[in-house]
């Protein structure tokens, strides 16, 4: 009745660890799901190769290219907005960067910087349109998705009559910076490091900084946030820029890993990153989410994506499987969040 039960987002440094406090963490579902899926594939397809080093490397790579974008997307979702244009932005980044390296002969560093500037432009445009029109960001960024994707395909068609730019690696030659995007760290690709670092940064910003506090407030009650003097428009534009920047980082990883820039790259990535964030506990209506949860959401996605190959089911069933997982995750997340918000201690 009057025991100090811990709830949802407790910031108490000496938070009592009870089963309940564990269950209502936003990350709970994604972590439990990851363990369950890993166990499932390990038991049933372990002998077939799921536990092999090559397989581990594969699913971590898939998870990383989702997770690198999903981390800033989580912050954007917490701020109450959406970005459907990230897949198209990856393609734009791939084409701009591989054009500069292959056709214009630029070294990697300036080519990457120029691509980041393009990303800042795309992010700022998305953010500006969302805050100025006050229309749902779902619609605004659906429009920019089409605009960017179409422009990338159209421009490349005019340029070389094709939808890809080949030979990125040979054009970059011995440029040491290539390692930053497609190098190996031990048995794993360097994208794993980017994923971990960006997740850690996003988690720290959201949970531990003033900016993060204001992200929560913006998505949790925008009117109240505005009244306390928070510049919600500026905050949202900054988050859109961060999202677009993460998309071109993935673009750079892709072109050096695959040796090619592709105007049709990352189709559907916008849904994959949101799936990871939502499995990780983020609320599409804003005000709630966890980059750590999203990390496990992306890991889960990667494991299922790659592990499915070993199951007797034809891989066309992958999406159905994923859909069920998403459904289960949101139902559990919804339940735990409501449990966390139940009034307590005020009843009697």
């Amino acid at each position, binding site marked *: 009745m009057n025991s*100090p039960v*811990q*709830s*949802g*987002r*407790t*910031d*108490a*440094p000496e*938070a009592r660890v009870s089963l309940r406090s564990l269950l209502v963490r936003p990350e709970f579902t994604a972590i439990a799901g990851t363990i369950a899926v890993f166990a499932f594939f390990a038991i049933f397809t372990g002998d077939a190769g799921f536990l092999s080093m090559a397989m581990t490397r594969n699913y971590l790579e898939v998870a990383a290219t989702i997770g690198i974008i999903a981390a800033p997307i989580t912050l954007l979702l917490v701020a109450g907005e959406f970005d459907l244009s990230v897949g198209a932005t990856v393609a734009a980044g791939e084409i701009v960067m591989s054009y500069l390296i292959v056709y214009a002969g630029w070294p990697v560093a300036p080519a990457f910087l120029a691509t980041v500037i393009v990303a800042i432009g795309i992010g700022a445009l998305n953010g500006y349109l969302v805050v100025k029109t006050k229309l749902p960001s779902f619609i605004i960024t659906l429009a920019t998705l089409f605009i960017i994707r179409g422009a990338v395909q159209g421009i490349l068609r005019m340029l070389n009559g094709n939808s890809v730019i080949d030979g990125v690696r040979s054009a970059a030659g011995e440029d040491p910076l290539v390692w930053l995007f497609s190098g190996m760290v031990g048995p794993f690709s360097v994208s794993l490091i980017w994923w971990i670092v960006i997740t850690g940064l996003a988690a*720290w910003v959201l949970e*531990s*900084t*003033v900016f*993060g*506090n*204001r992200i*929560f*407030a913006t998505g*949790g*009650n925008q*009117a*109240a*946030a505005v*009244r*306390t*003097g*928070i510049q919600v428009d500026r905050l949202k534009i900054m988050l859109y820029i961060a999202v677009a920047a993460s998309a071109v980082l993935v673009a750079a990883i892709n072109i050096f890993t695959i040796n090619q820039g592709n105007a049709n790259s990352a189709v559907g990535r916008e849904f994959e990153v949101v799936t990871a964030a939502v499995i990780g506990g983020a609320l599409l209506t804003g*005000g*709630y989410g966890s980059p750590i949860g999203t990390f496990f959401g992306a890991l889960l996605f990667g494991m299922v994506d790659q592990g499915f190959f070993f199951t007797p089911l034809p891989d066309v069933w992958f999406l159905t499987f994923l859909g069920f997982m998403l459904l289960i995750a949101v139902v559990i997340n919804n339940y735990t969040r409501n449990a*966390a*918000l*139940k*009034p*307590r*201690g*005020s009843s009697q």
Partner: protein
Amino acid sequence: MSTNIPIIEARNVSKEFAGIAALQEVSLKVSAGEVLCLLGDNGAGKSTLIKILSGVHAPSSGEILLDGKPAAFREPRDARNAGIATVHQYGGTVPLMSISRNFFLGAEIVKGRWPLRRLDLQTMNRIALEQIQSLGVRRVTDSSRPVGTLSGGQRQALAICRATYFGARLLILDEPTSALGVREATTVLKLVAEVRSRGIGVILITHNAHHAMSIGDHFVVLGHGKVVASFSRGEKSAAEVVGLMAGGVELQALELELEQFKPKAVS
């Protein structure tokens, strides 16, 4: 000597919206340690008046005096900086954030140097809890739990506490009790009394004449944008106040009309 200068005073304030008079020649004043209850029916102009006092609207004519000197608030921030805090219904809090994060929203306590500058959650938790408990809300024992777990009255308390902690001298409470049950409303009214005893001025907007009578020092009743009555504690009964709020004459007429139905209802 200077103690009698009101914190805020409105003199003959009028406000028109596109030619329609929402307020006409309204005057009122609030001094430190005083509760002014602002009463009136829907559409009487209460919200318009407090929006003028808190810098959201500029008056069409008339003037606002702050500590006896003319003040021109260009935006809500000007009023806030002058120590005028408005607490909205439900306290304007963020339910999914912790009590202390809400408490310090927009004025967070940090530690460390720039690239590593971060929230000092421990200090924020401690101060928020101390402040809330010092206002008599003892049931809240953990300021790291989400505001969504608090009752409506506790959320009001949090917002009031926050305003006073950040230096409010005048609190404007817009219908703080209207969404609350009896006991919750009592909690908020006790809180208002506590705040008053600390020398803070309060403007309390309410529909509930009994809530007003229980706490108010002065009363201003608005009707159709004008001051219908202005009186001090003890000068009128609750029944009279209810009559004034409903626009006395109309209520008498209604009672007469209802009289006619009485015999029929009994038979």
